[in-house]
C-alpha cells in the first residue's frame, strides 16, 4: 500500500470516528425520546394539539425548531415515532427539514461566523423554513404509500394497544437506536470515504466554481452533501470559502442540514428511497433557485459589501 493510501485510510478512519462519536449520543438521545413518545403519547394527541387547517399546521410545524431545537441526526428517530403516533407526515417533514436550520443555536452560529451579520443568518433561516414548508405542503397532497415505509405508517386507533410502561419504552428506544444507528453508521462510512478520497475543498476545481453563482451554488450544495457537517458548525466552514459569493454559501448552509450523505441513510429509516430521491431533487432545485434569488435580488439591497469571518486578536 502506498503512503498516500495509508494516509487516506488513517484520515478516513479519523473522520469516521469523529462523526460517529459526535453523532451517536445525539442519536441515542433522539431514540430515547422517540421510545418514550411512542409508548406514552396517546394516539390522536396531535389531532387535539395541531390546528385543523393542514396548511396552518404545516406552517407552525416548520417553526417548532425555535422552541424544540434539535440537530438533523436526532430529529429523524423522533419524527419516525411521532408519525407512527399520528403526527401528519407533512407536519413531521416540515419540522424535520426546518428544525436543524430554524433554531436559535444555528442562528447564533451563523450570525457569528459571518462577522455578526444578521442578514446572512436571517436569509439562511428564512430559506430553510420556506423550503421545508413548501415541500411539506406538496407532500400533504400525496398518499402516504408514496413516501412512507410500511413500518412507519400510522397505527390506527381502533387497533389493539401496546403496553404503556417503562419496559416497552426502553424496548422501543433500543429498537429505534439499532435501526437508526445502523443507517447512521453506513452514512458516516460513505461520508468518510468521500471526504478522504474524492473531495478536496482546497482544490482549484472548487475555487474556480466560485466565478459563476449558478455553478458555484451547485458545487457548494454537492460539497455540503459530502462533508455532512452539523448545522451548528457549517456556517464557519462556509464563511471561509472566500472565493464564493453569498448565494453559493447560503446554498451550502441550507442544503447541507437538509440533505447530506449520512442523512439519506437516516431518512431511509422513515421514507422510501424513491421519495428520498424526490426530496433530494426538490431541495436541490429550491435551494439553488432561492440562493441565486437572494444573491441577485435581496442581498444587494441589504449589504453594500461582502463580509467575512470575524477577526479578534
Amino acid at each position, binding site marked *: 500500500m502506498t503512503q498516500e493510501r495509508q494516509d487516506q485510510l488513517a484520515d478516513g478512519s479519523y473522520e469516521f470516528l469523529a462523526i460517529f*462519536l459526535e453523532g451517536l449520543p445525539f442519536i441515542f438521545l433522539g431514540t430515547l425520546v422517540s421510545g418514550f413518545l411512542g409508548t406514552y403519547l396517546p394516539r390522536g394527541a396531535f389531532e387535539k394539539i395541531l390546528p385543523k387547517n393542514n396548511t396552518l399546521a404545516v406552517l407552525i410545524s416548520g417553526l417548532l425548531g425555535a422552541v424544540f431545537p434539535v440537530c438533523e441526526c436526532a430529529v429523524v428517530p423522533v419524527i419516525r415515532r411521532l408519525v407512527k403516533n399520528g403526527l401528519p407526515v407533512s407536519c413531521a417533514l416540515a419540522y424535520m427539514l426546518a428544525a436543524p436550520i430554524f433554531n436559535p443555536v444555528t442562528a447564533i452560529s451563523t450570525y457569528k461566523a459571518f462577522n455578526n451579520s444578521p442578514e446572512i443568518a436571517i436569509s439562511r433561516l428564512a430559506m430553510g423554513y420556506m423550503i421545508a414548508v413548501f415541500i411539506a405542503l406538496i407532500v400533504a397532497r400525496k398518499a402516504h404509500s408514496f413516501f412512507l415505509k410500511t413500518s412507519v405508517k400510522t397505527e390506527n386507533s381502533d387497533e389493539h394497544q401496546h403496553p404503556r410502561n417503562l419496559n416497552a419504552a426502553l424496548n422501543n428506544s433500543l429498537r429505534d437506536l439499532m435501526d437508526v444507528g445502523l443507517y447512521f453508521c453506513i452514512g458516516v462510512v460513505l461520508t468518510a470515504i468521500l471526504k478522504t478520497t474524492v473531495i478536496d475543498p482546497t482544490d482549484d476545481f472548487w475555487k474556480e466554481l466560485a466565478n459563476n453563482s449558478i455553478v458555484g451554488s451547485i458545487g457548494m450544495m454537492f460539497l455540503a452533501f459530502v462533508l455532512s457537517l452539523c448545522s451548528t458548525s457549517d456556517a464557519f466552514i462556509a464563511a471561509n470559502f472566500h472565493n464564493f459569493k453569498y448565494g453559493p454559501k447560503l446554498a451550502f448552509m441550507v442544503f447541507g442540514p437538509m440533505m447530506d450523505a449520512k442523512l439519506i441513510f437516516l431518512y431511509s429509516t422513515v421514507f422510501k428511497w424513491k421519495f428520498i430521491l424526490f426530496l433530494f431533487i426538490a431541495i436541490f432545485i429550491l435551494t439553488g433557485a432561492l440562493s441565486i434569488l437572494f444573491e441577485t435580488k435581496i442581498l444587494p439591497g441589504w449589504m453594500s459589501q461582502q463580509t467575512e469571518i470575524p477577526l479578534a486578536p
Partner: protein
Amino acid sequence: MTSLDTRLFGFLACLWGGLLIYFYHSTRIRDYLDIGFHHFIMIGGIGMLILGIYSLINPKSKSNRTGNSKSCCHDHGDHDDKQHSHDHNDCHDHGDHDDEQHSHDHNDCHDHGDHCDHDHEEGHGPFITIFLTLTPLILAMTYTQDKLSNGGMAKKGLYEKPALTSANLPPFTRQDLEKNVPKNEHGEFQLRMISAYYAAGDLEIQGIFEGLPVELEGRIAPEKINNASGDRLRIFRSIITCCAADLQIVGVSLEFPEETNRPQVEDWVKASGTLTFETVDADVLPLLQIREVIPAEEPYSEFRRRQ
C-alpha cells in the same frame, strides 16, 4: 423482537456505550471532539450501557406478558410482509385484558389473515446490524492515528491563504492590541494564531501587525509555500466547533535565521519573532521571522474553539 434479538441488540448497545466511555476515559476523545462535547459523550455512553444491560437482563418486551397483563401479548417484531403468522385463538388469552388496553374484538374488528398496518418493526435483524456497525468501527479503531495526516490537514486549510475580511469589522487599533493581548517576558504579544493568520486578509490590521514582536503557540508542520530552499517550517492551530469533521487549520510560515535551533515536525512549541507579511503569487500571507523557538507543554486539547 424475540428475546434473543433483544439480548443481541442490548449487547451491541453495551458495545457502543462502552466505546464512548472508553474514548472519554482514555482522553482520546480530546483528539476528536471539542471539549464542550466531552461530558455529553460520557453521559451518552452511560445511557447506552444502561439501556444495553437492561435489555440483556430483561429481554422480554411487550411479548410474553400473560396472566394479569393489560397488554397485547404477541410479538410484533419478526413478521415479514405484514402478515400475522400466529393464530389469535390459540396464542394468547384475551380474558384478562381490560377494555382500555385491548378493546377490539378479534373476530369482528379486523382480519389478521389480511394486511394489518400496525407497528411491525421491520428493521434489520441483530446479526446484520452488529456486522455492519462493528466492521467499520473495528477498522477505524485499527487504522486511526487520532490525527490527520499532512495531506488531510492540507484539505482542512493548512496551506490556504486567509479569507479577505471586510471594512464592516469594528475598528481595531494599536491601543486595542495593547489592551487585549498579553505579552510574554520579552515584551512580545502572545497573539492567537487565528489573529495572525487573518490579519493577512485585512489591510488595516496588517498595518498594525506589520513588524510586531509576537509569540505564537502551536504545532509544527512542514512548509510547502515559498519554500524552495527547504529552510522554512509552518506553525499551526486547529480551530473547531463540534468535531474533527468541521476542523479548520490555520498556519503561519516560519523563517529561521541560520543560528537558530529548528524544531522538529510535530513538536508543540512557542515561536517568537517578528510578524510580517509577504506576497506569494499575488496572495498576502503571514510570515514569522523567528527570534527563538522553545518547546512548550501541550494543552489538554490542541483544538481551539471558534468564537
